[in-house]
C-alpha cells in the first residue's frame, strides 16, 4: 500500500480538516465532530435541513455536496464505516432551524442503525426528523427478507433533488413525500477493474487478475455478480445498460438523468469513452438524457471502475431541481 497519508488511524480527521480549510467558503466543521455543515448559515435560515453521511472514502461524497441548494451537513464516518449516532445527532442539531431535518441514508445495516439511533436522540430533543434509505444498486437481488439493495452513486440525485426543494422552502413532509417518489426511479450498476485499498487495513478488498473485471461490485468492494475477461468499453456499456433496462424498461417517451461515475482511479478519458458508447447505446432505445454528469462523484478510494446511474425523471420539476444552481465544492 502506497498512499499519501500520515497515520492510517487519522485519515478521516485529517481529511475533514483539509477539506474545511481548503474550502472555508463552502463548509465548516460541526464542533467536536467529523461532520461538516454549510459555511453559509444564512442559506439555511427557515429551511428544512438535509443531512447525509456515511463511511469515508467516497469523496467528494458527501462533504463535497454540502452548500447552498444541496446538503446542509454531511457526517464523515471512519473509512467505509458508518458514522456513529452521536455524530449524526450533532449534525442534526447544528442544522435544525425548527423546520425539521431530513436524513438521506444509504442502505447498509450500519448506516441504517446508526442514523436510526441518532433519530431517536433527536426525537428526545423534539427535533422533527424524517429519512429515506437509498437502495439504488441493482446488482443485488431485492428481497424484504434480506438487507436489500445497497445505496450507491444514485444517492447524489437524491441529495440534489431534496437539497433544491429545501432551498426553495419545501416542508419536511413535502420533502419526505418527494423522496419516496424519487427513490424507485434511481437505479445504478457498476463494473470494477480493481478494488480499493483501505488505508486502515492496507489490503485491497478483492483481487482481480490482470485481464479480469467484475460486474456489480459495491462501493466498499462488496462482491458483484460476475467476473470475466476485460471487454471493450462498448461491451461493458451493453452489459450495464442491459441490466438497468431489465429493471426500468427504458422508454423513448420518458425523460432520464444519467450519471457516469468514476470509482476513484479511473481516468476521465476512460469515463468519456464509456459515455460515448453509452450515448450510442441509449440512442438504440431512442433515449437521449435530459441531464448528464460524468466524473468522480461517489468514489471508492483508489478503486478502478465506473458506475452507471439512470434516473427516470417521472416528474418534470425534478429536472429543474437538478439544474438549479448550487454552491458546493463538487456538484
Amino acid at each position: 500500500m502506497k498512499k499519501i497519508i500520515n497515520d492510517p488511524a487519522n485519515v478521516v480527521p485529517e481529511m475533514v480538516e483539509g477539506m474545511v480549510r481548503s474550502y472555508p467558503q463552502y463548509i465548516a466543521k460541526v464542533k467536536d465532530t467529523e461532520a461538516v455543515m454549510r459555511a453559509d448559515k444564512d442559506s439555511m435560515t427557515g429551511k428544512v435541513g438535509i443531512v447525509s453521511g456515511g463511511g469515508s472514502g467516497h469523496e467528494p461524497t458527501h462533504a463535497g455536496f454540502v452548500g447552498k441548494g444541496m446538503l446542509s451537513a454531511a457526517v464523515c464516518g471512519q473509512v467505509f464505516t458508518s458514522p456513529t449516532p452521536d455524530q449524526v445527532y450533532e449534525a442534526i442539531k447544528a442544522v435544525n432551524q425548527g423546520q425539521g431535518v431530513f436524513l438521506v441514508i444509504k442502505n447498509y445495516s450500519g448506516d441504517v442503525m446508526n442514523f436510526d439511533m441518532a433519530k431517536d436522540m433527536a426525537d428526545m430533543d423534539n427535533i422533527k426528523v424524517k429519512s429515506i434509505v437509498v437502495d439504488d444498486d441493482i446488482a443485488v437481488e431485492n428481497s424484504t427478507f434480506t438487507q436489500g439493495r445497497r445505496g450507491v452513486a444514485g444517492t447524489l440525485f437524491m441529495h440534489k433533488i431534496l437539497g433544491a426543494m429545501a432551498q426553495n422552502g419545501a416542508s419536511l413532509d413535502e420533502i419526505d413525500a418527494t423522496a419516496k417518489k424519487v427513490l424507485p426511479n434511481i437505479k445504478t450498476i457498476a463494473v470494477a477493474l480493481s478494488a480499493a485499498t483501505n488505508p486502515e487495513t492496507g489490503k485491497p478488498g478483492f483481487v482481480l487478475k490482470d485481464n479480469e473485471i467484475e460486474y456489480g461490485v459495491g462501493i466498499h468492494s462488496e462482491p458483484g455478480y460476475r467476473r470475466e475477461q476485460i471487454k471493450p468499453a462498448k461491451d461493458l456499456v451493453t452489459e450495464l445498460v442491459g441490466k438497468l433496462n431489465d429493471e426500468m424498461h427504458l422508454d423513448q417517451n420518458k425523460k432520464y438523468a444519467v450519471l457516469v461515475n468514476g470509482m476513484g482511479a479511473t481516468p476521465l478519458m476512460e469515463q468519456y469513452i464509456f459515455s460515448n458508447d453509452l450515448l450510442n447505446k441509449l440512442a438504440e432505445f431512442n433515449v437521449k438524457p435530459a441531464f448528464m454528469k460524468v466524473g468522480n462523484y461517489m468514489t471508492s478510494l483508489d478503486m478502478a471502475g465506473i458506475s452507471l446511474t439512470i434516473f427516470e425523471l417521472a416528474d418534470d420539476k425534478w429536472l429543474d431541481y437538478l439544474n438549479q444552481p448550487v454552491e458546493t465544492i463538487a456538484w
Partner: protein
Amino acid sequence: MGLTVKNVIEWMNNFSAKIEQNKQFLSDLDTAIGDGDHGFNMSRGMTAVSQKLSTEPKTITDAFKQIAMTLISTVGGASGPLYGTAFLEMAKKSSTSSDIGDLLAAALTGIKKRGGAEPGDKTMVDVWTALVPEVKTNKLTQEKIASAVEATKDLVAKKGRASYLGERSKGHVDPGSQSSGYLFEALLETEGIL
C-alpha cells in the same frame, strides 16, 4: 457471587484483550464476507471502553451505560449500534436485576430489535441465541461457545453486508459472531460473574 463493578471491568478488559489479539483475524473474517473492518471497529471501541473504565464507575448500571455509550460513539458500522444497544439494555435491566442471564437476555432482545435479524440469519444473533440459555442454566463452556460460533459457518447470510453474497456467504464464520464468541469467552474466564 454475581456481578460487581470490578468484575464487569475485568470482563471488559478480558474482552478487549481478546479483540486486540484477534483484531486481524476478525478483519480477515470480515474481508471474506463483508468489508474487512470488523476487527478494527471492535478494537477502536474496546480500547476506548478499557480507557473509559480505568476510572471505576460508581454502579453496575453506570458501568454498562458507559460501555454502551463508548461503543456507540466509537465503533460505527453495524457492530457499534448492536453492541451499544446490547450494553444499553443490560444497563437498563441492571437496575432491577443482578442476574447476568437476565441481563444478557435483555441484550439479545435489544440486538434483535435494533438490527431486525432472526436466528439463522448468520449474524451475532445466532451466537447470542445459542449461548444466553447456557448462561441462564449455568452450562456455558468453551466448547459450546466454539460450536455456536462455528455453526454460523454453514449459514447463508440474510442481514448485514454478508447478505450481498447470498449463497457465497456459506463456508465462512460470521465476524460479529466470532467477536460475540470472544465476549462470552471473556465472561467465562472472568472469575465470579457466572
